[in-house]
């Protein structure tokens, strides 16, 4: 059998180009071909941008308050984050991939790994089919990269994005070897997925400038000088899969609920309210992922730009037993309150849950269980919320119906086209 023609296992990385902007464009064709940016929570800074916006010199992370003065002049369109829309389109994206492959691992909101077998020619046909299908069914443009390992899939995806002649699709094994080698020697070492700026500096210090230099380095030396993780990346580049293909749930080892406020929170009473809302969101997410937490961390932060900068109280609570109970979490987050200073302008707060485990993993002693836990308050609250909308009920301060001043500012948000009956896209009959 000629080399390379046998069917073996490959991994594809499929990601949506400028996902947030692309999702907006599906339902608003006036945004096509125009410079569009999407802003972070509270319309703070640029978190996504179209290539037309890039061409105007806009960059990721630029604060909106600086850009807004010249936006009209530049013809720049800004959108607040529409997470209802992006979340739905992300689910559909993974759903369409599921129609094309047996194993899909969602990696982030806009990218997923897929397991495949086939010859390079078959893989190329498959990759083109997937690209066309996601475009037709969802209106989202994607790039597909295929390789023998996750790291190579990521690298191929990068090539698919950068090299126009590939048409958004790159199967590493189908690229002529001379081209591959040239590509690898042209790419700086920090282009390897998992190698950050600091590590890249250390590698360059040892003469590894390009991805090719790194791939050709001695793996044992890499392990001894750096770490086993770095050695694995080198082996992955050589086509030996070392990173497990796993179907992960949203929650791995930890869960974080954290937001910036539209208006600073200055009183303990207000902060108690914020934290109890977060605690209940965390409880819902834990339960959705079938997890319970043993450790809870709560923090608040002032803005880096304010005169109070540097005030970052934090507290970690070891819970009596692993729990996802909203009543317990709501009570425990209040441990932060004594550490706050009244009058300080807190810009952000969050809670983190760690040491996650599956419910019932450790035997809980009745001694530690709260009486209300037996009464299943969480499923009751959730069933009410799913029937009567999110803000219909909540525990304590989180039960207040009126939107709070600190809630997210999303002044330029597009309609929630796919999740709200009264915000459906309009089609004209004229």
């Amino acid at each position, binding site marked *: 059998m000629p080399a390379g023609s046998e069917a073996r296992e490959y991994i594809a990385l499929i990601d949506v180009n400028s996902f947030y902007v692309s999702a907006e464009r599906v339902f608003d064709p006036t945004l096509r071909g125009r410079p569009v940016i999407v802003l972070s929570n509270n319309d703070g800074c640029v978190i996504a941008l179209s290539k037309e916006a890039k061409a105007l010199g806009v960059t990721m992370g630029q604060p909106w308050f600086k850009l807004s003065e010249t936006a009209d002049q530049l013809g720049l369109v800004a959108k607040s984050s529409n997470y209802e829309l992006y979340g739905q389109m992300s689910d559909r994206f993974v759903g369409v991939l599921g129609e094309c492959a047996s194993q899909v691992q969602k990696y982030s909101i806009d990218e997923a790994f897929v397991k495949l077998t086939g010859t390079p020619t078959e893989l190329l046909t498959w990759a083109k089919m997937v690209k066309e299908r996601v475009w037709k069914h969802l209106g989202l443009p994607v790039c597909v990269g295929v390789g023998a390992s996750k790291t190579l899939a990521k690298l191929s995806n990068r090539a698919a994005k950068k090299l126009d002649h590939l048409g958004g699709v790159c199967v590493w094994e189908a690229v002529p070897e001379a081209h591959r080698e040239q590509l690898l020697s042209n790419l700086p070492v920090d282009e390897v997925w998992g190698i950050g700026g600091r590590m890249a500096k250390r590698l360059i210090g040892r003469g590894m400038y390009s991805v090719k230099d790194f791939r050709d380095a001695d793996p044992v030396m890499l392990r001894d000088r750096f770490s086993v993780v770095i050695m694995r990346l080198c082996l992955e580049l050589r086509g030996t899969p070392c990173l497990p293909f796993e179907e992960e749930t949203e929650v791995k080892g930890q869960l974080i609920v954290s937001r910036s406020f539209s208006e600073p929170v200055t009183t303990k009473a207000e902060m108690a309210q914020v934290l109890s809302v977060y605690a209940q969101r965390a409880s819902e997410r834990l339960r959705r992922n079938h997890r319970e937490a043993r450790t809870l961390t709560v923090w608040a932060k002032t803005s880096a730009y304010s005169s109070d900068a540097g005030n970052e109280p934090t507290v970690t609570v070891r819970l009596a037993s692993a729990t996802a109970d909203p009543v317990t979490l709501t009570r425990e987050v209040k441990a932060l309150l004594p550490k706050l200073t009244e009058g300080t302008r807190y810009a952000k707060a969050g809670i983190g849950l760690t040491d996650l485990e599956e419910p019932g993993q450790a035997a809980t002693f009745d001694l530690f269980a709260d009486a209300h836990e037996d009464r299943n308050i969480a499923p009751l609250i959730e069933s009410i919320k799913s029937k009567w909308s999110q803000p219909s009920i909540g525990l304590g301060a989180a039960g207040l119906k009126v939107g709070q001043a600190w809630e997210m500012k999303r002044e330029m948000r597009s309609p929630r086209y796919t999740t709200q009956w009264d915000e459906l896209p309009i*089609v004209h*009959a004229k």
Partner: protein
Amino acid sequence: MRIDQIQSLDEADLTQGLHQAPGSVAAGFPSPAQDYQTAPINLTEHLIRDLNSTFLVRVAGDSMEGAGISHGDELIVDRSRTARDMSVVVAILDGEMTVKRLRLINGGVVLQAENPSYPSIHVQGLSELDIWGVVIKCIHNL
């Protein structure tokens, strides 16, 4: 060894059997519908073929009255369907999503309104036309 295993299996089956008693035991006449209980009709299941590629849109205007589509109606649009002659489609025209009937006649492509007071639109070719999706159902508000 073998006998132990058989015994434990028996025990497991017995407890399972006990736990599987259907519902609560009420004193009184049992509901004759008890054995016929099934889920209520799920509209999604009947109206939508492909959940991933199906979207809902709302109509503004009366140019499609002849096709039974009125102002304010909701349309079920499946993007995975291929548009053919006579399909009702959502197309992108001048940056707007527009609903029209697609006609492919003698090599000509026409977006036809279903109301005599609106003109039909002639398109150069099918490739010139940006079809957003194919309308498969109309939820008409009475």
